[in-house]
């Protein structure tokens, strides 16, 4: 039966060239748009490269402070929002390091620094990360030579640095540079390891040099206001859970920790504002917005995707109706010779699905082309926006890093959904028209 359907589809495609081209292009454009959204989403949330545990990574990136009070009537309590900023290392060390539920917790600060090889007189402006030892448990960096710095070295403020391959080559002309001196912001460090380059689109892990945060004064800055002492700073925390479903347990543990911090007598209080975030939530967490806003941002993107899916489906539905009208006689004949409504609907569904699949493949190719054109914009995530601008370039991303089995499944899923939405109503309507009307093309 399928072979007969496929033969007929081939013939229909050839016979109705205009219709076929419009239909396939319509599908392709829709698939392209959704693919670009999905690729962006995948880059920011998927388990890719060194960020291969992102599905069980959670992020605490900001501190939020509120001021509790009573309204004019004196009956209703409220919490007035006071401010928001990244966190201080002291706050993270004191309240977040003791967390028991996660597998690993890492304090991270990302910035730009002047990097200098005194011997060779080579100067570079590089993206650097001041981190702790757990950082190397969270990300799967591949060490070409040497090793990461240890917890003891972080505690003892040992001037150790891990550098990436391109920095090693730029500064020293080779990668076997363990023990070599390098100056970061005019302070001398020793290279303890060299890792493969981390592409900038993996913004959570991206840097060219990594060194203990305890050795960098900029990372040790913390706010000194009376109520919010040691809350604000330049740092954030990455949490690696044992299981992706641990988010709520970790959140509860964090809430418990900050209760200790928020002594009742204090005028201002620290709130998590729904942190820790998943990778997706952290993409949408911007500035000081409450979680409701973050959530509504996610909903808007979801609605956009649905609209992108539904609008072309409605157009395609119109095209399908036009073609069904032309094929009314065929519907009548098929029913006369024993086709039931269900069989006819199945036939129309598969016919359109095959054409949509062709559209899906074209869409995949189109999205490849458009991806190449707008790659730099796509790859600059919210989190690295400023940094990427300073770096002045975005690493090359191979399209096929993100187009894998997952992506192909997405395309199949999109085609299936588009097909379902666009075919269902016309197929149902036309499969049920009376045989005599269909034969007479009324």
């Amino acid at each position: 039966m399928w072979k007969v359907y496929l033969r007929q589809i081939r013939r229909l495609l050839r016979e109705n060239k205009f219709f076929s081209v419009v239909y396939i292009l319509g599908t392709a454009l829709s698939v392209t748009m959704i693919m670009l959204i999905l690729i962006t989403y995948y880059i920011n949330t998927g388990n890719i490269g060194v960020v291969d545990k992102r599905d069980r990574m959670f992020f605490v990136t900001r501190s939020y402070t509120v001021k509790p009070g009573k309204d004019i009537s004196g009956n209703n309590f409220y919490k007035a929002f006071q401010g928001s900023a990244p966190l201080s290392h002291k706050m993270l060390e004191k309240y977040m390091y003791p967390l028991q539920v996660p597998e690993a917790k890492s304090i991270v600060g990302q910035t730009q620094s002047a990097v200098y090889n005194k011997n060779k007189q080579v100067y570079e402006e590089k993206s650097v990360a001041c981190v702790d030892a757990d950082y190397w448990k969270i990300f799967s960096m591949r060490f070409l030579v040497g090793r990461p710095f240890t917890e003891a070295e972080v505690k003892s403020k040992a001037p150790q640095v891990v550098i990436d391959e391109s920095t090693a080559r730029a500064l020293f002309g080779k990668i076997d540079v363990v023990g070599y001196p390098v100056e970061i912001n005019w302070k001398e460090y020793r290279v303890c390891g060299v890792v493969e380059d981390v592409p900038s689109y993996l913004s959570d892990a991206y840097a060219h040099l990594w060194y203990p945060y305890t050795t960098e004064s900029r990372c040790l800055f913390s706010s000194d206001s009376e109520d919010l002492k040691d809350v604000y700073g330049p740092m954030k925390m990455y949490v690696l859970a044992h299981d992706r479903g641990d988010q709520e347990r970790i959140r509860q543990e964090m809430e418990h920790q900050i209760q200790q911090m928020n002594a009742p007598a204090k005028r201002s209080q620290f709130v998590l504002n729904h942190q820790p975030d998943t990778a997706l939530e952290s993409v949408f967490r911007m500035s000081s917005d409450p979680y409701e806003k973050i959530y509504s941002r996610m909903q808007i993107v979801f609605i956009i995707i649905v609209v992108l899916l539904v609008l072309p489906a409605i157009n395609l539905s119109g095209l399908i109706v036009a073609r069904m009208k032309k094929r009314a006689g065929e519907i009548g004949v098929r029913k006369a010779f024993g086709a039931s409504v269900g069989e006819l609907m199945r036939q129309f569904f598969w016919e359109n699905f095959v054409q949509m699949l062709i559209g899906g493949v074209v869409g995949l190719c189109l999205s490849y082309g458009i991806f190449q054109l707008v790659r730099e914009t796509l790859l600059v995530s919210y989190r690295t926006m400023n940094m990427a601008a300073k770096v002045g370039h975005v690493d090359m991303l191979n399209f096929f890093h993100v187009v894998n089995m997952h992506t192909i499944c997405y395309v199949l899923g999109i085609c299936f959904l588009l097909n379902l939405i666009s075919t269902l109503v016309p197929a149902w309507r036309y499969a049920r028209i009376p045989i005599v009307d269909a034969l007479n093309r009324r």
Partner: protein
Amino acid sequence: MITVKDLSKVYRTDEIETLALEHVNLSIREGEFVSIMGPSGCGKSTLLNMIGLLDAPTTGTVEIDGQDVSGMNDRRLAAFRNRTLGFVFQSFHLIPSLNVLDNVELPLLYRHVPARERRAAAEEVLSRVGLTHRMKHFPSQLSGGQCQRVAIARAIVGEPKIILADEPTGNLDSTMGAEVMNILHALNREDGRTIVMVTHNEEQARQTSRIIRFFDGHQIN
């Protein structure tokens, strides 16, 4: 084989009501070749559609092969049509995007017959109507007579007991019309199939075993 009792068909729109058939009673025995005749608009094709279960009567019943079909749902009706009835239409109604072989196989497709058996059966009936050399052609590449022969092959491939032909020679010239009639007569005579044919052609009707005449929705003999 076919029993029609007190059959009426009324077509209603918002403004008008048209009585297409009124209180028709008839019986057709197994192996008969019956012609239905009458002027245009007298209800011949409407009756054929009722007998072929392509349309539902307003009142009355149709009994085919001992089964009252009035209570059947879409699925059962489709299966019953598939096994019991074969259709030959005036304008052939071949599916233009299918080749001759696929068109002929159509009834077997809905009977879920395996592809190899379908092909063998289709080839056999095509050889019977003299069209084995046109199997891979599409309807647009055939003459009117050839199209009607393909339509007959499609009607008989599933070996139905009854063939319903609605002006099968209406779109053909006299030579091709005669060829088609010869095939229908052979199917009636040799295979014992019951054939009900709507026609305007008095001469062709006279060659059949019985003529039923209609006028303004009424059976007049």
